[in-house]
């Protein structure tokens, strides 16, 4: 659990996304893989987002990727999930897909945050049902 009391939005899964959220609750980052076109994709959908095949499976991702890009958010929104300044990041996973997340465990200083730096997943529960995948720099 994050030290900061989470007051942000708490998502409600749909049947198509529930396996993803069950995965994060168990400390696993799940992606979908299409056995037809042999590509991963994210976010969860019942048919492959590349080729519309139904022959898709859930697989556990390595949890490693790179900081593709980010912003440093200064404004405390009514429901900011972290105390400002906090980093809203696009992570490109080693498997290919990109996702929105936060970069945590590092000073929000652009000088120390080059794009493409290696990152790894950490799991932070925000409610009994929902655990968010966030990312931190890979220790040197």
């Amino acid at each position, binding site marked *: 659990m994050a030290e900061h009391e989470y007051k942000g939005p708490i998502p*409600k899964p749909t049947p198509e996304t529930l396996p993803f959220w069950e995965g994060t609750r168990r400390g696993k980052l799940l992606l979908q893989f299409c056995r037809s076109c042999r590509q991963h994709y994210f*976010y969860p959908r019942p048919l492959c987002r590349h080729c519309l095949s139904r022959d898709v499976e859930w697989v556990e991702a390595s949890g490693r990727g790179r900081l593709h890009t980010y*912003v*440093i958010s200064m*404004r405390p929104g009514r429901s900011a999930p972290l105390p400002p300044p906090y980093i*809203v990041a696009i992570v490109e996973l080693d498997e290919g897909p990109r996702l929105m997340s*936060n970069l945590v465990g590092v000073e929000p200083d652009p000088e120390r945050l080059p*794009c493409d730096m290696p990152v790894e997943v950490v799991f932070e529960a925000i409610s009994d049902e*929902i655990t968010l995948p966030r990312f931190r720099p890979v220790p040197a």
Partner: protein
Amino acid sequence: MNDFRRMRATAAIVGAAESDELGRLPHKSALALHMEAAANALADAGLAKSDVDAVFCSGRTMANEIPEYLGIRPRFIGGTQIGGCSFLAHVEHAMAAIHAGLCEVALITHGESGHSRVGMPAGRWGDDSPTFQFELPYGTMGPATGYGLMARRHMHRFGTTSEQMAEVAVATRKWASLNPKAMHRDPITVADVLASKVISWPFHLLDCCLVTDGGGAVVVTSAERARDLAKAPVYLLGTGECASHQMPSQMPSFEQWDAAIESGRRAFAMAGLGPADIDVAELYDAFTIVPMLALEALGFCAPGESGAFVSGQRTAPGGDFPMNTNGGGLSYTHTGMYGIFTIIEAVRQLRGECGERQVAGARTALCHGTGGQWSAAATLILANGF
């Protein structure tokens, strides 16, 4: 299959106007702003409400709401909602409908109480939507996040700087100082932009558009009918649109604006023109980086070179690339869906109605809008002759 290029110059914009007022208007609802703008655009065209047989609007619940409020019973209705560039897409759709013989006089209206929030629809995302599940829990701040993500990657990839982005804010403010309707008209410097509060790094406050109340409307009809109306027609030479994603995390690229590359390519192909043929550019400026990426996507400069392109106040009055001559979303007005105002200003420039800020001898104009967060793009190429 029909060649889309055959629609070149078959339709024209014959009326264009804002609501009676722009700015902070707690005494007016969004629908009232629609209505004022619609009446003003029809008067500008010299047309009556009874001449209108098509209505296009965006951003509310059901598209029938606007014609009911205006007391119009259209036989063609467009409710395409792809964000702030919706109205540029509406112009393309109106042209196609007119070309197909489905309607003859199309009214495109916008009204938004973006600042005062009077009479505005309720929130957009349900708590089980993809956006709510996969973006909002990370503290995304809407456009300031989505546009900033591209800005940061562009800085990394091409060396674009905060100073270069600030050049856009400074030049746009100079244009606003020449527009009596602009909200902010006092000059600013690059240092002022860099010293303004950081909102969502890399954006400072003065990199961000205004949040205002206002409306705008345009009237489109066939080129044939346009010749008999109150003012000289502004012909539609080219149009294009494209949508590539909804959520910023799903953008195809964070280094170039994919949707705009496609919308621009289509518009120039229909017009039979290239970037060098454009006399004045009205490029949606939600943030300073947005028109910069548009310049690259539309071919006014090479990929990665927009920072150098806008340096030295090139887009300011007196510069060799007149851009956002109304003062833009950055300094004139930005209701939330700014796209309609790019069209209004382009029409006025091509009619020679712009007074102090008139671009001398302007014959062609390009309007370009963004929707969502780089999610959609639409481009219009306009001319006062062909």
